[in-house]
């Protein structure tokens, strides 16, 4: 029982960065913009968060710096993909390649440093609930932030006027424009939100998950998050389930080793990527269903008044 609780708690921790970055991408894609630059934005968030926390001595300053770095990167993407109407695939790839290079460059001096990362804070009362309390409410503060972000995104999309406008723009930007909506402005805001969340997810890695900086420490989580959004068919409730599922896949090797399973760490390290492919297969089995849920203008640049 103790083992199961520990595994479940570790699953939530491993799923948190995925949940954060995927929530941001979900909002971005709902506005019709596909940003493949998650990996680059996360890496910039991770390095900026670590550097700021190390030099200021404050984890909160680190988190703020990570969010700012993520937003800054996303605005570069927005300039290309929204203002200049560049191919979103290429612009997103450029963002990832640029972010990977820039983060390694800026972080070169921080390799080997370590800091005191976020520690667990048990929420009174809630953490006393059997099993669930230990799994969900005896975690570090950023995990709670991810819960709030999830609830915020889900409620925003479903019940708010802003969420309605966002979805309208993602489905049909021309009709939205004809109705007087500022398509480009909304898309900028959506991309920036995605950038901030990716930066926060990066900070989670470098300030809570493993409080240190190494080159490419995201290890493809940005890409897994992109698959996660497809898996969730652009719905937040399925997104949170998926994030913990992928979290479980990425800690499975720890569990197996804990149970005395003798296998190579490298082979087990493949698991999250294999699971991602498997999920894509299961999900894409019926292409019509995916297509039905995809925001109609996803990936299409929009140029008003051209």
């Amino acid at each position, binding site marked *: 029982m103790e083992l199961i609780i520990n595994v479940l708690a570790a699953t939530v921790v491993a799923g948190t960065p995925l949940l954060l970055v995927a929530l941001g991408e979900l909002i971005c894609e709902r506005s019709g913009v596909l940003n493949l630059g998650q990996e680059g934005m996360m890496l910039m968030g991770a390095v900026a968060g670590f550097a700021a926390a190390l030099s200021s001595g404050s984890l909160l300053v680190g988190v703020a710096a990570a969010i700012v770095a993520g937003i800054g990167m996303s605005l*570069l993407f927005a300039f290309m993909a929204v203002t200049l109407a560049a191919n979103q695939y290429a612009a997103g790839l450029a963002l990832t390649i640029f972010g990977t290079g820039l983060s390694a460059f800026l972080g070169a001096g921080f390799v080997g440093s370590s800091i005191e990362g976020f520690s667990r804070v048990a929420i009174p009362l809630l953490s006393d609930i059997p099993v669930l309390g230990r799994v969900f409410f005896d975690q570090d503060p950023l995990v709670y932030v991810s819960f709030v972000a999830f609830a915020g995104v889900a409620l925003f999309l479903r019940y708010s006027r802003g969420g309605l406008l966002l979805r309208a723009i993602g489905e049909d930007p021309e009709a939205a424009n004809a109705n007087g909506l500022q398509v480009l402005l909304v898309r900028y805001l959506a991309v920036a939100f995605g950038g901030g969340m990716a930066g926060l997810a990066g900070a989670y890695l470098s300030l809570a998950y493993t409080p240190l900086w190494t080159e490419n420490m995201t290890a493809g989580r940005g890409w*897994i998050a992109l698959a996660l959004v497809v898996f969730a068919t652009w719905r937040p409730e399925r997104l949170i389930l998926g994030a913990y599922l992928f979290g479980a896949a990425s800690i499975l090797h720890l569990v197996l080793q804990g149970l005395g399973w003798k296998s190579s760490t490298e*082979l087990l390290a493949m698991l999250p990527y294999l699971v991602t492919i498997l999920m894509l*297969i299961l999900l894409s089995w019926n*292409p019509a269903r995916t297509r039905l849920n995809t925001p109609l203008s996803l990936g299409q640049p929009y*140029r008003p008044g*051209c």
Partner: protein
Amino acid sequence: MLLLERRPVASSLMRWASPLLALILTIITGFVLFLVMGKDPVEGLKFFFITPVSDLSGLSELGLKMAPLLLCAAGLTVCYRARVWNIGAEGHFLMGALGASAMAIQLSESSGFWVLPLVLLTGVLAGMLWAAIAAGLKTHLHCNEILTTIMLNYIALNLLLFTVHGPLKDPFGFGFPQSVMFSDSALLPALIPGTRLHLGLAFGLLAAVAVWVLFARSFIGFQLNVAGQDHRAAAFAGFGVRRLTWFAFLVGGATAGLAGASEVTGPIGQLVPQVSPGYGYTAIIVVFLGRMNALGIVAASALLALTFIGGEMLQIAMHMPKAVTGLFQGLLLFYLLTCDAFIHYRIRRRKTALQPLSAAVTTAPQEA
């Protein structure tokens, strides 16, 4: 407010000026970067762009780095022309290196002219097999190839790490994760005696010629182009889009696999974990910078090869972080895409505050 106005005809001047403009902007940014870091910018740029290629040994090193980039880029060009977004050259490359190494180690007792071709062929087939997975997932199970090829890259890397730490590890290698050195009959001959430059560069140049022939002279190249521009048009014309996707993936896998095989049988001579400094990813930049064109990718691969050597040079001479290579590569791609916007658009300042609603409505249908 700035507005983009679609040009009536795509600007062919911008199409070719854009890579040059991107390079100039990258150099300017590099100049500022050196200033900010308190280094001499002129000296820095000289170390990056000129010193590495100022003598024969430097030029041969450039050719050495060009070879894998050019091979990977040739395959990716075929994919991207057909709008198959294969990001998996890195994975194909690693599997090519792994397959070729396994065969070379198997044949370490053998000698003969047939050893090297067999080793290279194994690498090519391994790369094709890895690409075939993504092709099958796309054509039969409708999986997005960007995501599957990225995942396959990570899986390939872990497979490679597994083998150099396990089955292919040199038992007498003092515990280092690396294979035995290959026998001489499994090594690529030098292209210029006395340098490390090997036959791989010739493979790369041949691949570029093959790309030119494919698109300028063959029917399948024409079909790929049509499919890239409009899938439905290709389908109406009866060009099996599924078949073309497979073709693009297999070519991409074959060339990147050959690149991996050439790397282990060329300058390295054994399988090591760090067989690729990201050639497969850099090749994506080569393809865009080279305008998906045979001659273009030759020039672009030379430039990006220079970023690898120039980065090393700055690391040694000016104590800059090695990552400066990735930074310059990222900047270059960034600026290129920005400049590329002006192939199809020009900037116009918006004079009136807001366009009348009726104008927006009447222009809207032309969008589609």
